[in-house]
């Protein structure tokens, strides 16, 4: 509640929050079929129609309504972004926390393992995962999740190491608090701030990566729409039907802009170091 209020009070938080909120609504509408047209319906006579009263954003090669597909695509892109970032966050946090807490060999082994993943070119990693398992929503989720896990592990490990030396953790140890208690209450709870910020930024990046994967034909599968797929499908139609490229591109930019703005605001709000008068 307090957070929501501060977001609202923060100028870029307000804009970013509003954008993200609008997108969530769109995504939900898309997911529950509350679109002006059936996103899969091919109106054959109206193929490649420019924006008009009945098709606000025009139609595509198949005569499908771009707006409806865009709404569905937002849902799809957000699903991929959300689940991939969520899984990366959970796995990365657990790994980062334990690496910081147990230190020594476990830390070394884990961090070297993360190095292996990090040293692996991200798009290739995603590519390999996708080619092995076959493309699809959940493969994209797994691929992007794997790419982001080492980043979250690092994001968590750093602050966790310094939190570990904070006085309240020492205090907890003098009480003889259990490991789980310390890890969850003292470390994890205090990592919420950097994690939230990282999550919003990662969401933005995940949207871009999803678009990139779909662009290479490795992401969302037709006939379902995702923003990246719509972009990649329309690039060779850029000249005949520029709206096919323009609207999804704008949609992607705006959503990433929203997440970035929100992330900036959250950093200002949650991170006392950058909190300024």
């Amino acid at each position, binding site marked *: 509640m307090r957070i929501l209020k501060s977001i609202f009070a923060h100028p870029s938080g307000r804009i970013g929050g509003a954008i993200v909120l609008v997108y969530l609504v769109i995504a939900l509408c898309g997911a529950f079929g509350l679109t002006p047209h059936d996103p899969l319906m*091919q109106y054959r006579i109206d193929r490649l129609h420019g924006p008009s009263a009945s098709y606000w954003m025009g139609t595509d090669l198949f005569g499908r309504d771009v707006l409806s597909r865009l709404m569905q695509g937002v849902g799809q892109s957000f699903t991929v972004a959300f689940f991939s970032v969520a899984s990366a966050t959970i796995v990365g946090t657990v790994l980062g926390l334990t690496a910081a807490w147990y230190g020594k060999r476990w830390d070394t082994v884990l961090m070297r393992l993360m190095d292996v993943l990090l040293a692996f070119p991200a798009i290739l990693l995603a590519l390999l995962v996708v080619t092995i398992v*076959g*493309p699809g929503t959940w493969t994209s989720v797994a691929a992007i999740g794997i790419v982001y896990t080492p980043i979250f592990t690092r994001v968590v490990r750093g602050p966790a190491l310094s939190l570990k030396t904070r006085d309240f953790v020492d205090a907890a140890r003098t009480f003889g608090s259990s490991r789980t208690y310390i890890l969850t209450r003292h470390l994890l709870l205090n990592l919420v701030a950097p994690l939230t910020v990282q999550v919003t930024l990662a969401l933005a990046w995940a949207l871009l990566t999803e678009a990139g994967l779909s662009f290479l*034909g490795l992401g969302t*599968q*037709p*006939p379902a729409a995702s923003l990246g797929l719509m972009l990649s499908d329309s690039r*060779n*139609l850029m*000249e005949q039907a520029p709206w096919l490229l323009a609207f999804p591109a704008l949609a992607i930019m705006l959503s990433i802009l929203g997440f970035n703005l929100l992330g900036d605001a959250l950093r200002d709000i949650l991170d006392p170091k950058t909190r300024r008068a």
Partner: protein
Amino acid sequence: ATLRMAWAQDATGLDPHKQTAFSSLRLLELIYEPLVRLDADLKIVPGIAQSWEFSADGKELTFKLDPKAKFQNGDAVTSADVKASFERILDEQTGAANRANYLSIEGIEAPDAGTVVFKLKQPDAPILTAMTDTNSSIVPASEIAAGTIGTKAVGSGPFKLERWDPNSKEVLVANKDWAGGPTGVEGIEISVLPDESAILAAMRTGQVDFALLNDPLIATLVPNEAKLQLNRAPVLAYHVLQLNPARKPMNELAVRQAISCAVDRQAVLDTASLGEGKVTGPLTMPVYASDPDSLFCYKRDVEKAKKLMADAGFADGFTATVIAATGEPPTAASEAQVLQSQLAEIGVKLDIKMMELNVYVDTWLKGDFDMAVALNGGRPDPYTMYNRYWTKNGNLQQVSNFADDTLDTLLQQGRAETDPDKRKVIFADFEKQLAEKSPWVWLYTSYGYTAQQKNVQGFVPMPTGSLYSLGKVTLQQ
């Protein structure tokens, strides 16, 4: 002058006997020559061989070689080279792509340097067409012995490969010794521009004289440019929805026919390819092709389809998965989506599964699919084109999963028959049967596109997609 050329996909290797990829053949056919070739009307014309003839019993095929033919290393092309080349193709160790077409060869004789005689176990009319294939090119016997085929390109064609940076560029220079006479340009520089819209951009700015295009969406933009010209040639390759008759419920004839009736082929063509192409039956070569409208259910008939479904006990439809390769052809995903929407009308629910090309090929070869959207290569001869799928011991039986006595018999007859008119009758029947039994749903053939600056002269588009005529192309200043 040097012709600056661009294509999106580069060759994958230099061994003319092994490389089957379209992109590889386009390069290799400029360097290597087969014994005979096809012209724009798919008629057989001289290549390295000046003339040829079948013996009366059809079991001996004799070639006279062109005495001017020379390899790029300066050696003349002799019957020994032809013999060695075909022995290499026939050797199982080689893994040559065309071997299956030559199984009727019993022996090869080279009575003199300019004559080659193929002894056949049985009459084999299509063997001559098979020999037009770049995959049956003649290579120097010396290079075979040295084991350098595939690493060094030494052919007898119009151009010499001077430099190859895979996936980046090729430099070809004119072969002064080419038996076909002097080439029109001094050389060809080929750039690999993986993005076809970039190829178009490069042509617009005059950086590229000549380009190979794949994507009809890009090709249709070319005529809008004053300086550019688009060449279209109908090709033999066909777009098809392969059903797997080994899987339920496609094992039911009625279900397959229902699917065939429910598909609006023209709509698929219009949407996926912007209408760039022609609806086709199984036979795509003009000589043999029948009028599509005469084939089974080539007029869309949803009511009939529904009835057929009901007859087969699938009034409520069923769910199946259709596989397609990403970007190969570029229209695959679109075709799948149009088909999906059309079949939905008779209750057939398709799940589309896009696959990376190799994964697709792997799955396809195992016959591990309900349905597949495919672009299958065509051959000038119906037997060579289809024996692999529809004869009982065809090599790709596990892909077609459909063995049928009538089809088998018709193909065997067509193979042995050397009279062209009788062959036409046999294959017309074959085509009709195939369309009716509907193991696959043939959709359309598209065009092979090349785009060129208007000052490029003398290019002849071929139904095989061959760029062989680049040997005679000139550049007007």
